[in-house]
């Protein structure tokens, strides 16, 4: 198939320009993708990557610019047209119907009844072939983020694409899963399928991609071969400033008193296919950061909800904050004890997207910040607090009156982390602190977490990004099948040893024998 004209690039875009009201998203951007190439598209949030990609997928109509596909000039009319040309896309935010099964979701994306014949068998076949196992009859509602992504990838693969666009695909995967995905992607590339790979993880881009186009503020800034640059060099081209590693923290005072204690915390998952927490115990001192690694769907969201008080524990003493048993207390009472929480899902969980930033600032802070007087919201103080978050965390927005959904993912995450950090918590729990966040924002969030710990807070970060855990955490524990391993000091841990604990992709299968020895 590919022998027709091997020299012609698969896709060539010249001078792509798109003006939005008040923002030139793409300014004469060029992009060339060769056949069978894994091509990285790099840039900060707001650099114009999404607009460019949406143009390729026919969602955005460019104001100017030429597109050639397999040597032919073309105007991509809509996503359906793009799919017929052989362009598939895996979005960062999935478009899945939660109440439907995997197979039903995939069937919805396919056009005719003919396409749907034997679909279940094909899903199983393709997903196994490419190392992305999926049960077609599971309901999406109960799947982890990682599993949901597999649906999106398999949905594309079923259509035998010539170009596969992947937006931040690895942010929800374990190192082992990432390696499996890379094998899948390399295999696709060797079969002649080109891949446009959008990621903030520069190490991965260096390992996987043979070419990279770097964008900044809507323009091309460089075309590089990623392997020839260091991560720091790539990041600096992206954000055009010198990057510093987070400032190292002073060593912890010995004998610091425990601020957060979990004692045999056992919780049933409220979700049909969720993971129950089994006898989770740990002790966390002030000034300490504990990293909890693990594959998506091994009980992390249940742990998060149990810590924040959305799910109550069986016994008050299962969770103790600063000496007070809180196992049976709800989120309000835990916040009064200076517990703060940032859940994984920003949209509709950590934030109400249809409300303003001021209202969202109020949502979890009104107790600690005393924003209610006689039952009435103090809107001036609320506004000022939101403004404070925006300034201190460099949130790019028009102001506290902006709707939360108008912010990019990274900016909203900075806002939500800022909302909790500025309440000076004694215990802070963050699930996926930097999922889908660009390098600059991630650094700001990391700095804030470390600063908070330096001030004496006990911090838990639950993350699937091992690099992040190794950078931030003093000790690392692993969640697998609802069990939490004994935390080990970060200096004694290696990616391999942690990866082994994570279960290498089949954690759910091993849960029974892998009973960790807990007191």
């Amino acid at each position: 198939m590919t022998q027709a004209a091997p020299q012609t690039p698969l896709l060539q875009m010249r001078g792509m320009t798109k003006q939005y009201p008040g923002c030139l998203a793409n300014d004469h951007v060029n992009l060339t993708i060769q056949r069978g190439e894994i091509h990285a598209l790099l840039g900060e949030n707001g650099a114009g990557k999404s607009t460019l990609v949406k143009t390729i997928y026919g969602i955005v109509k460019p104001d100017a610019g030429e597109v050639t596909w397999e040597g032919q000039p073309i105007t991509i009319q809509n996503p359906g047209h793009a799919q017929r040309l052989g362009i598939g896309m895996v979005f960062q935010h999935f478009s899945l119907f939660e109440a439907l099964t995997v197979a039903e979701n995939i069937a919805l994306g396919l056009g005719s009844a003919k396409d749907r014949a034997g679909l279940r068998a094909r899903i199983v076949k393709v997903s196994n072939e490419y190392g992305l196992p999926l049960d077609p009859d599971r309901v999406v509602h109960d799947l982890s983020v990682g599993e949901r992504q597999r649906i999106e990838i398999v949905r594309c693969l079923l259509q035998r694409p010539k170009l596969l666009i992947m937006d931040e695909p690895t942010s929800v995967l374990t190192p082992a899963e990432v390696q499996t995905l890379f094998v899948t992607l390399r295999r696709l590339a060797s079969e002649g399928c080109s891949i446009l790979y959008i990621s903030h993880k520069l190490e991965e881009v260096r390992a996987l991609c043979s070419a990279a186009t770097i964008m900044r503020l809507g323009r091309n800034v460089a075309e590089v071969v990623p392997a020839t640059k260091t991560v720091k060099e790539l990041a600096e081209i992206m954000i055009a400033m010198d990057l510093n590693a987070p400032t190292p923290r002073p060593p912890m005072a010995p004998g610091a008193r425990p601020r957060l204690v979990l004692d045999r915390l056992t919780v049933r998952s409220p979700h049909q296919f969720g993971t129950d927490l089994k006898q989770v115990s740990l002790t966390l001192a002030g000034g300490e950061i504990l990293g909890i690694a693990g594959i998506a769907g091994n009980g992390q969201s249940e742990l998060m909800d149990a810590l924040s008080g959305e799910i109550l524990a069986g016994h008050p003493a299962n969770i103790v904050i600063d000496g007070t048993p809180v196992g049976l207390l709800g989120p309000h009472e835990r916040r009064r004890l200076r517990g703060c929480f940032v859940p994984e899902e920003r949209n509709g969980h950590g934030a109400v997207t249809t409300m303003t930033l001021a209202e969202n600032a109020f949502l979890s802070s009104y107790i600690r910040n005393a924003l209610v007087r006689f039952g009435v919201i103090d809107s001036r103080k609320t506004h000022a607090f939101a403004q404070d978050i925006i300034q201190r965390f460099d949130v790019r927005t028009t102001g506290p009156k902006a709707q939360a959904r108008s912010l990019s993912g990274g900016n909203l995450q900075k806002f939500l982390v800022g909302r909790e950090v500025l309440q000076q918590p004694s215990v802070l729990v963050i699930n996926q602190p930097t999922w889908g966040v660009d390098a600059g924002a991630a650094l700001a969030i990391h700095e804030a977490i470390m600063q908070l710990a330096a001030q004496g807070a006990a911090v838990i970060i639950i993350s699937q990004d091992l690099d992040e855990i190794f950078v931030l955490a003093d000790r690392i524990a692993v969640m697998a099948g609802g069990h939490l391993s004994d935390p080990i000091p970060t200096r004694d841990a290696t990616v391999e040893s942690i990866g082994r604990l994570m279960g290498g992709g089949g954690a759910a299968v091993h849960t029974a024998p892998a009973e960790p020895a807990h007191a």
Partner: protein
Amino acid sequence: MLKVEARGSESRFWRYASPVLALLLTGVTTSLIFLAMGRPPATTVYTFLIQPLIQQDGMSALAVKAAPLIIMGVGLSLAYRANVWNIGTDGQFNLGAICGGGIALALPDLPMILLFPAVLLAGLIGGAANGGLVAWLRIRFNANEILTSLMFAYITNYLLIWLVTGPWRDPMGFGFPQTAMFSDSAAGPRLIADTNLHLGIVLAPLVAVGLWFMLEKSLLGFQFRVLGQATRAARFAGFREHRLVWIAMLISGGLAGLAGILEATGTLNQLTTTLSPGYGFTAIIVAFLGRLNPLGCIPAGLLLALTYLGGDAAQIRLGLPNAVTGIFQGILLFYLLGCDFLLLNRITWRAAAARGVP
């Protein structure tokens, strides 16, 4: 050709323009119906919507009709904003009237200063009890409140019919299905003597302003709004969903009960089988036309009150059936919900030539 595109975010313009467009379309459609019935549309619309206002006492008649609609529409706005779909306000209206009316009939000789507040309170409690039952069924058995509240509307309606044709029937009433007249102290004060301008006319705007303040400015109102827009975020914040469902049902039910007893004491001065000409259902339209905003319910309630007066006028002057009111209200709700499609979608007209920039 016509093309529909998703806007991505809600249009502010259409938030307020959509009810206006719906009203215009309703006017056009009803005109066509009048035309089909062989009536000149202009005069008919005039008789239906203008005449009732300019006749003698038109404004006070409008206020009397609008008061219960506004009071109930305000309660529904609050509940609907919290995703609590109380459809049975007509039943809560009736139960309020039954409870308050029962007190009024049992203790007619108490002084007004004691009796009237007791009657109102009983009405409020009756409606709230009905609402609370719906909340309890939803929380305890996960029973859908749309169904249960609607079913209660029929139950209380038949309870009212049974009472006024049975145990509570006025022995002096020549067998008519109605209770004895309430005593003067039960009927409560009048704004102007010898009219039926009752206390509800003052209460309705006060309730609207009060609940608007609660919904937009208070912590409780914030909790309702968060619950309606993102259940998980409400849980994250620590807002207790069950408590909010209880409060929403108690308030919307209680206000409907209050509207019911105000109507019984203020206009009829007795209980009859036809106390509510579907006020509870019309209040649903009031809430939506008012954009689920308690202040918006004031103009919306006035407009829908006008459709009742217009129906009477059309019947008397033009010999049109009273069903005109129901038709008008139904068409209005239809267009209202239809036009809200424009909030999140835009419709563009695309000429064939303008397509394709190569």
